[in-house]
């Protein structure tokens, strides 16, 4: 990963907003942890653990909408709001993420 890690008082800069295409997700490493960051078409940012708790699927490769993220392997759906699974499966961890001067800042 070419991104320089930079610890701020409240979070880690993992990359630039434009590194994540609209509606898609990309995985970054922040403080030694893989984090999947998503930029929805409505402009909102979300960050989750990178691997699906069900079978380790790469969540950054999943499809999204305003409510949920779908794992690409078995279509388990997780809510952005709290990481809970719509089917009652193990939830995913969600991380606060925001944009600061075009940088993606994730709290790990």
């Amino acid at each position, binding site marked *: 990963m070419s991104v320089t890690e930079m610890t701020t008082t409240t979070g880690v800069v993992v990359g630039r907003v434009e590194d994540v295409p609209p509606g*898609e997700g990309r995985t970054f490493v922040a403080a030694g942890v893989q984090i999947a960051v998503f930029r929805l078409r409505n402009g909102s940012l979300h960050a989750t653990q990178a691997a699906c708790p069900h079978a380790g699927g790469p969540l*950054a490769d999943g499809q*999204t909408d305003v409510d949920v993220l779908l794992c690409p*392997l078995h279509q388990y759906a997780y809510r952005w709001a709290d990481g809970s699974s719509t089917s009652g499966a193990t939830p995913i961890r969600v991380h606060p993420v925001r944009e600061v001067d075009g940088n993606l800042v994730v709290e790990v």
Partner: protein
Amino acid sequence: MTAILGARPAGATALHLDEELDSRGRLVVVGNGMAGARFVEEVLERGGGEQFRITVFGDEPHGNYNRIMLSPVLAGESHEDDIVLNSHDWYCDNGIDLRAGVRVERIDAAAKQVHAADGSVTPYDHLVLATGSYSFIPPMTGIRTDDGELLPGVHGFRTIDETRAMLAAVGTCTRAVVMGGGLLGLEAARALQGHGLQVDLVHAMPWLMNAQLDAEAGAILKKSVESLGITVHLDVLASEVLGTDRVQGVVLKDGRRLDCDLLVVAAGVRPHTDVAVRSGLEVERAIVVDDQLRTDDPDVYAIGECAQHRGSVYGLVAPAWEHARVLADVLTGTDPEAEYSGSRTATKLKVAGVDVAVMGVSTPERDDDEFLVISEPKRGVHLSVVIRDDRLIGATLLGDTRKVAFLTQAFDRGAPLPEERIRLLVDLSGGDGSASGMLSVAEMPADSQVCNCNGVSKGDICGAVSAGCGSVGEVMDRTRAGKGCGSCKSLVKQIVEWAADGDLAEDPAASYYVPGIPMPKPELMRAIREHDLRSVSAVFATLGPGGKDDARSKMGLTSLLKMIWGSDYIPEKDAEFINDRVHGNIQRDGTFSVVPQMKGGVTTPAQLRRIAEVAEKYEVPMVKVTGGQRIDLLGVRKEDLPAMWSDLGMPSGYAYGKSFRTVKTCVGSDFCRFGLGDSTQLGIDLETRFQGIESPAKMKLAVVGCPRNCAEAYVKDVGVVAIGNGRWEVYVGGAAGATIRKGDLLATVEGRDAVMTLAGRFMQYYRENANWLERTYDFVPRVGLEKIKAVLLEDSEGICADLDAGMQRSIDAYTDPWGQDAREPATPGQFRPALPLIALPKVPVR
């Protein structure tokens, strides 16, 4: 022996509102069995907990349990804890006052009070009687002791306590007599026999299960039961029970004596009506109710087996649960006009290890009733149907219930019957399969009922799958399918597996093309054209409810927009599934597979050499020959994809998409001594023309040079067979995956060009009219072969020119995605690893 099923842990208490302050109506339910407890659930589901203070009286001290499952408990196949439906905790958590183990003595309808055996008096605003049935004990000399109790060793088979008593006895007993050759008696006999007891079954009627089966089927069932080692005595009554302190045997009317140390009486049930009788309610065979389950007292209702509606008393759980639904609708005001109009009972069960399904009448009743019987006593199979005026009015399936889904559908809804009636009962291979009524799981209509107990349709199950239920158990929890008698569990499992197959689950419950846009496909296509919507985000913004996007709809919309707009489609990578974003099939560890195009399955030494070099250079963990006559490089890291494609220098084989995949061929007339046509070249031509065309589901083709069918053209979405003299047969709708189906012969045409035109026209018709993820093997029977023939061969709708033009537009828009994205990524980080800290591949290297 005294443990309470579904008991609340000691010390737990419930909080109750002060009676005086509670303004809610008082709803009292007498009976905590399958009907009563379900009724309470239905009331709660409708928000009735806000409306009513609910009190439930149960004769038994237990929570609510699944009485249907007592047979497996007796057989030792289920644990009693597994059959608890609602524990005491559940009642407490829902604020319900459960009086378990308290028998109600009478009702004072004038004062609107319930008097119970514990001396309590409970007022009600609405009273629901769900008292169920009790085991009928026929009058026999010696069956009771002087104090009126059953002689020790004699048991009914109706409650968990009776079941426990029998289970306790099986250790010490060696011989059992079971009285009653109905369902319960047979189940008890098999269970006891499974515990090692020698079992005699005594049945007063001339054949087993006489209420459900005809004589012939009953005779076959008898053979199956006897083959288990159970001795069956028919057409004979037991007149006397022997033994003073404990049962020692029974004497039959004909004088024979059967020794036993356990006697199970399963000679039918009788509705529990004594409370109703004592309280002055109208009782005939059971408590008489109207279409709103109301007795002759306007505030007293009866549901389940204790109710008599329009002269019928039901002994099955499905009607009882229908009663519960209707009454909950009425009392909660959810639908004050709700009415129950009777049940057409269709039953599926497994009795003594034999599958049985019965519905309607078992024998013809009128001269012109059609009656079809297939009887195979040796196999223990007996199948029959009764048809009147082209409608199924009865069916009996014994020993083979594969056809039950379609027959239930036909029986419940009057679905059309196949002309060849025998297709109702058996699958016939070959011929015109499209007209037959034989439904595989994939072919079953979404609204066909799967779980009769809970009224769950195939669509409900698929809906649960697409809503994220990832296992059979989750689907059953969410839909309640299989939670009644359990006999449909295997079908539920099949449907769940089918629905979860493929990259995305479909949403067949709705007529929507995709779940997130509330429109069927034709309407959606019109709206897309009308509003000139060229990207998926534009479709959501314009047509989505509230302009909302939906992750599960994106892939289907991408496919549709590409089909409609061709090169004028505005691509959005986030609307594509990962396979389409990076042009490979994602594997379980997040790596991808790379399948280069190999038209018609024909390759060259140079191509093979290149593939071998690439496989070595990128340390591909597995190289595999595919079923589609190509070579698959499996376990490729996402970041290696562009370089591999460049090194390969071959176009994508589209082995990942919902698209035209491949054309298998045989070696045809150039090499094969039997070949009647150049199938190899025709396959290459087809693949060249239609490569990469997106479609509602994948399309796999084959061309064979003679009817020996070496490349399996008969079971392809489009299959072409040379029959000589330049003539080709074109088959459509074949399948050899999860579903096996021989394709239907669409036409026999002259020459290669005619094949190309017809194949393209069919595929375009399918692309424009099939539902998302609907394979041709579903599409062709759904639309009907005759209609497809008329449209494509006779141009009955005048659309052939449009179909040809539509296909040409897509062909013109084709670009090889590998060549394109290998040069320049479509989006930033298109090929960046999604799990950068995990060393891939994790698959074993071969």
